[in-house]
């Protein structure tokens, strides 16, 4: 069924690329990855970081630091699984 080892490669894929997902990825996980990617992009790109720091009225370093901090839980805590919530 898995003749060409596509599934066997997925494991490696996920290990190498954190942001990739699968059919069971939840909305929260997906968005958390999006936010991290976005924040990383801002931090890495100096002009974008400057733009944001001007908008926020902070120093560039502070902005970058804040964004790095936010990467821990960019979207807040993960929602509880529905089974337990009830």
């Amino acid at each position, binding site marked *: *069924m898995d003749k*060409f080892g596509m*599934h066997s490669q997925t494991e490696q894929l996920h290990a190498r*690329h954190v942001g990739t997902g*699968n059919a069971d990825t939840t909305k929260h996980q997906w968005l958390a990855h999006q936010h991290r990617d976005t924040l990383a992009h801002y931090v890495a790109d100096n002009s974008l970081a400057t733009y*944001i720091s001007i*908008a926020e009225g902070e120093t560039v370093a502070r902005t970058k630091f804040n964004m790095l901090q936010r990467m821990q839980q960019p979207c807040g805590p993960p*929602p509880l699984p529905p089974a337990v919530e009830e």
Partner: protein
Amino acid sequence: MSSDLKEQLEVERRNRKKLEEQAAAASATTTKNNARSQKATTRARGFVDEIKFDTDLYGAGDKYAGFDTSIGVSEEQQNPPQQQYDDFAPQKSRFGITAPRELLEELQDAAEEHSEDPLKAIQRARGTNRVIADRESDYQKRRHGRQLSPERTDAFGASNATEGGLNYSEAMRRVQLENEKADLMAKIKKAQEEKKESQEYQQTEEDSSARPRRMWDVETPTHPASTSSDTKRRNRWDQTPADIHTTAIAETPRRSRWDETPKVIDGSANSIFGETPRRTRSRWDETPLIIGNGTGSAVGFGATPAGAYGLETPSVVQIAAAGSAFSSKQQESQQQPSAMDARNMYQTDEELDALLPSEGYIIMDPPPSYVPIRTPSRKLMATPAPLQGSEGFHIGEETKHPEIELPSEIPGIGALPFFKQDDMQFFGKLLDGQNEDDMDISEKRERQVLRLLLKIKNGTPPMRKIAMRQIADKAREFGAAPIFNQVLPLLMAPSLEEQERHLLVKVIDRAMFRLGDLVRPFVHKILVVIEPMLIDEDRYARAEGCEIISNLSKAAGLPAMIATMRPDIDHADEYVRNTTARALSVVASALGIPALLPFLKAVCKSKKSWQARQTGIRIVRQTAILMQSGILPHLNSLVECIGHGLEDEHQAVRTTTALALSALAEAAAPYGIESFDSILKPLWLGIRKHRGKSLAAFLKAVGFIIPLMDVEHANHYTREVMLILIREFQSPDEYMKNIVLKVVKQCVTTPGVPAQYIKDEVLPEYFRNFWVRRMALERRQYYQVIDTTVELAEKVGGAEIITRIVLHLKDESGPYRNMVMEAISRIITNLGAMDIEGRLEELLMDGVLYAFQEQAGEGKVMLDGFGIVVNGLGTRAKPYLQQITSALLWRLNNQNPQIRQQAADLVARIAPVMKTCGEDELMSRISIMLYEYLGEEYPEVLGSILGGLKSIVNVIGMSDMQPPIGDLLPRLTPILKNRHEKVQENCIDLVGRIADRGAEYVSAREWMRNCFSLVDLLRAHKKSIRRAAVNTFGYIAKAIGPQDVLATLLNNLKVQERQTRVCTTVAIAIVAETCAPFTVLPALMNEYRVPELNVQNGVLKSISFLFEYIGDMGKDYVNAVTSLLEDALLDRDLVHRQQAASVIKHMALGVAGLNNEDPVLHLLNYLWPNIFETSPHSICAVLEAIESCRVCLGPGRVLQYTLQGMFHPARKVREVYWRIYNMMYVASQPALVAFYPRIENENKNTYRRYELDYTI
């Protein structure tokens, strides 16, 4: 002396009896039937109870308390509560098999339909013998002597799951017992020899009137003593050692000199044999006894006149003489019954009486000088069988069970491709026709395992696959014992074949993986079976064995492995120690050297036995060989561990240590000299002290350590060791020679050693001893000498060496000339021929020519050598070319095809040199000659002639070629039809070359004729031929215009054969590339209208290749092919859509960034619905096409498509969409940041990305 020994033996026997009783008590525990044995176990375990294991490390309670011990395979067994957790346990099915269940089940049913493994059928038809036992060396055969020891208790397991196994102390005692037995055997043997000597002396003194022995008296063991007159005298055959298979032996009290029947007792330990009853003696009846036990129960055997088997050798175990199928257990304990061939039986006295007339003849006494042949059976008896094993001699079972019909259908399995006679022993149980419903669960399980094993061993590949999966999945359900108790005896079977072993070993591997630490009780058994694979001559078998043992050590854990193998480390049998050392080295590499280091230290410093020390050092050696540079971090401790072994009192240990050090140094090179500092001194002293084999080992160690040293030290030590090396140059021992050569090579490559020193000190002796004819006769030395000589040349310069050996090119011995030529050619390849001048150059060319002309037989040494020497000389070869050419022309005319072929091959090699020397005239003569010989009938020779012509055409150019190209090509066209691969390859190369460079010399009609022949070449097996043919199409199309060639090719698309069609599509694409696409595309697209699947697919494929080759040229043709692709993507045929996808892939990649987004987007819309394709080829093609579209259109566009399905309610849809998303994410994650959709916050979570809303 002898009475002393007798007493000693008596004492030893008593001791042994005591031990045996203990062992019997211990092994009685293995019978797991009643409470008595339970009690025995607990008593026996008293030893181990005192050992307290660290509970932190090994755990106190049952660590599997909260877990299921087995996992159901089929859906029904899955417990329903699991379903409700599924929602928040997303990772679970992440990497599972995603095929629908009905497909999986379908495969299970389909198993029977498939035919037999074709490879095996071929092997059987050819009669290829794949039986492992038949190709084993004597040493490897010793594996048959090993037994599968009883299971062991799992001392490290949390729960004592396996009651009744051997515990560690019992295992140790067992081995001790075996060692003592071996010791005793050796003593008995020695005593026997001594006695024999003394008796022979006695015999000469005895009066000759005593009745001389008859030849058939001698070997028969059961002489009643009553008639013998000299009862007191003990003679030489009365102390025959029994062939002991188990530790339990009932010694018969001694009565007379004859009654110590050498008994062969085997089978289970509780069987006690009664003494052989004596009979009155007749003249003829001294027939041997056959002792055997069919059932393993305690039966006393009467003396049977061996009518049927008439064996003279009493020690041969006759098992299953009645032809009953015996259980695997017995088989395993008896290893190999060496049955006598029925045709070679000795005639019984009755038969002799019946045959010979009774009157007129007397039975003659043999002359007194006659000595009966008694050695074979003597030796057989004197050999301690459990150590050496039975002889490994195995006769097909057909003679034994002629009455058993071989079944083709096994109940519960169905038809099998084959069922061998030997399988009957193991799988006979399945055929007894009992109803399984009546059996208890364990028996049922056993049968289930047996059935699966039979399927794996004898089944068709699909059957095998399914059975393999089942046995792996259910391993925990079955438990370790039922699986291993069936598999392991199978692996010990004498008729095991390679493939069977591979499959069964795979079963062990899979089962082990599932069972985890439940394998612990079986570790030793598995090792006994797998260890022999580590010394197999087949590299793959060795690798397989390594893998199994490393998996085993991971499953069982280090403590269990060590506890299991510890008793074998100082086993009396060298074979056991050797294999154990190898197995432990695998464990070391699997679990890391640091883990094993404390144990190694302890073993290497063992005071008790030198065998243990040797084994420890061997482990280090094997680890170094296995792990190579992986040992570097632990080099210090390893060297420290074994260093003291150099000064061991035992020579074997010293030798092993030296070898281990050399292995360590070799693995560590070029680092780690500081680790060896401590052993340098003893090593150097050792070189002076030792002789023979151990000196060789020491020299080897030195040879590998010197290259690690810094320059000055290396120089110093090389000089030191060279004295000894030069002394040993003359050693007649081959082993020593090989090592000396290796050490010289190592020393010479070290930078610190000056060239002048080598020239003065080493070379004279070296050439005197090693460059002699004798060295060329043995392959290994041949290469060793050449290697070393080449290294020497690197040091002292090529001319120096060549001067010394060049004269040998005219030696009368052919192999020696070969050796000289090979050395010279390698030296010139490495160093060039710049320093060869004057007289040496003449001598060399002279010698080379002579050797070339004198060469006998095949082999490329002379040919290559000649080519290399001539090419090395370059322009300096000019004076010799005239002579070479005339020799060549003469040889081309030779009657012997081989000589013609060599000459033609030589032309190919020296053509470039002739060009550099400006000898075009000579070359033309040769090429005309070759041209004339194009009618050659031997294809090999014809291929070489074509090769020669090709190289001449290459160097001389099309315009100056003689004969002119216009004449040459028409001669080549018919040769293209030749079916011989060498001819085809050379011919197509030549034709391609001409088409490429000199197409204008040939008429268009001729080229068309060529095209037709070329079409056939597309069917060739060799890829290079097909590639050359396809390229040639391109050249020809370029020369004469694409129309005609294209017509030929398009016609070719209609043929049935796939390979031809594929090659044709490639050829069309190449034509399109060379002649611009607009010349080809219209015709190609027109061809698509042919309502034929093959043609349409061929067209699509051509277009795909076309776009691949033309790259960004494709931007002008996208719109042209769009409608065709639309049609193909809407086709019902899967292959159409697949091919269209691959066209889009190449096209979109080619036109990326060239303003063709509109048509590509349009095609993407048609492409997208195909993402749900399940066939692997088409889904691959579709996904790749989407990937290309992403490159062309940008990831944002494709992301919008992807977002539609990533959270679709259907899992199947989500899976595909996530795959596309992942693809995209991996390739262009930063670009996606800008395109993610805006998602509103939920109660606790912020999902909006506010920064995107900032405006300044």
